[in-house]
């Protein structure tokens, strides 16, 4: 799947579209409007278009009040957009929460929350959102997607998507758990992958969780795990795998 970057200029009209959706916009400094910030720091980002798709697909999934907020911080170079309903019950919650930021000269996006209420899971609401998101990431030249894999079995699922683990101590914790749960035969390849990776990359921040996820016994270990991961959109293999999944009919 090839995604072609598309130019876009965010203007005051985009801000008005976002406000029309019901978003409360909070910026630092307050006298600099969103349209002076987005095109300068996050070029080609059709934020209004993305938020409209989220509203169209996610808003009908809940009878509860929805909180819509945008927080931007010009000195910190961060943009946070939040769409979520007012419940702490995971089975009823709907949320789409992202932070775009610059770090070391590169653009990153943190996937904070994305979920729909239980009756709407697996019903085709997610792919259009991720397709639209990925298009925007390409437009902006975002380097990495950051995720905290753990919620709702995400430790297993995001590993299967090719997200790599960035914190060696978290990988060690998962290995320790695997020692307790797997048989001697099952742990051998798990250990081999761990040893080779950290032998080749001491303190490495791209542990290939996907190689663990498909090993016998590791599904249950990873479903209970909690780790910080990233997906490098400039890495051809990681980008190709993820975009193939996202755009598959």
């Amino acid at each position, binding site marked *: 799947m090839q995604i072609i970057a598309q130019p876009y200029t965010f203007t005051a009209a985009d801000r008005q579209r976002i406000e029309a959706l019901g978003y409360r916009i909070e910026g630092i400094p307050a006298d600099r409007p969103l349209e002076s910030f987005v095109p300068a720091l996050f070029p080609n980002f059709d934020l209004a278009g993305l938020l409209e798709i989220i509203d169209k697909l996610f808003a009908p999934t809940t009878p509860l009040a929805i909180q819509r907020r945008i927080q931007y911080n010009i000195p910190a170079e961060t943009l946070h957009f939040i769409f979520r309903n007012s*419940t*702490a*019950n*995971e*089975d009823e*919650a709907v949320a789409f*929460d992202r932070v775009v930021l610059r770090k070391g000269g590169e653009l990153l996006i*943190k*996937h*904070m*929350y*994305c*979920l*729909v209420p239980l009756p709407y*899971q*697996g019903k*085709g*609401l*997610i*792919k259009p959102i*991720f397709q639209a998101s990925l298009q925007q990431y390409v437009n902006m030249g975002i380097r990495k997607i950051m*995720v*905290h*894999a*753990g*919620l*709702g*079995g*995400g*430790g*297993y*699922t*995001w590993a*299967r*998507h090719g997200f790599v683990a960035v914190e060696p101590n978290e990988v060690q914790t998962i290995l320790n758990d695997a020692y307790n749960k797997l048989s001697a035969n099952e742990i051998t*390849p798990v250990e*081999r*992958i761990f040893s*080779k990776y950290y032998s080749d990359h001491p303190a490495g921040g791209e542990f*290939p969780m*996907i*190689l663990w*996820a*498909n*090993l*016998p016994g590791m599904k249950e270990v990873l*479903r209970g795990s909690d780790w910080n991961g990233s997906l490098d959109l400039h890495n051809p*293999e990681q980008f190709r*795998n993820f975009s193939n*999944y*996202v755009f*598959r*009919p």
Partner: protein
Amino acid sequence: MSFDLKYQSDHGSTGEELIMNVSELEETGAVVEKAVREGYFTLADALSAYRLSEIEYVAYLLLKNKGKLEVIDKENQVVGALYYLVEAFHAPSASFDASGKKVMKELETIVHTSPLRDNNLFVA
């Protein structure tokens, strides 16, 4: 189940929905291929570790390379398919009996002397 606001993460069900149309064969085959390519295992060890048979791996390679195979004529599709078969059975063929080894040797000769060797078809 509680939705812990301090626990920031895309939900597992979100990722499951994105991957729901990916077959187990495709997913496991791709992992075997990666594990071998990056030197974590030999092909034989990877197939054993991920519990994929040689035939399943051949099927994975054929499906993955369907596009590449279909652009060549049918005669050469056979050679392309043989290449994946030879690759997958290279290690286990060491334990074949004499007639089995002879078959493998002939298949290897066909594949390695094919004009297709010069294009990217043989890059699995």
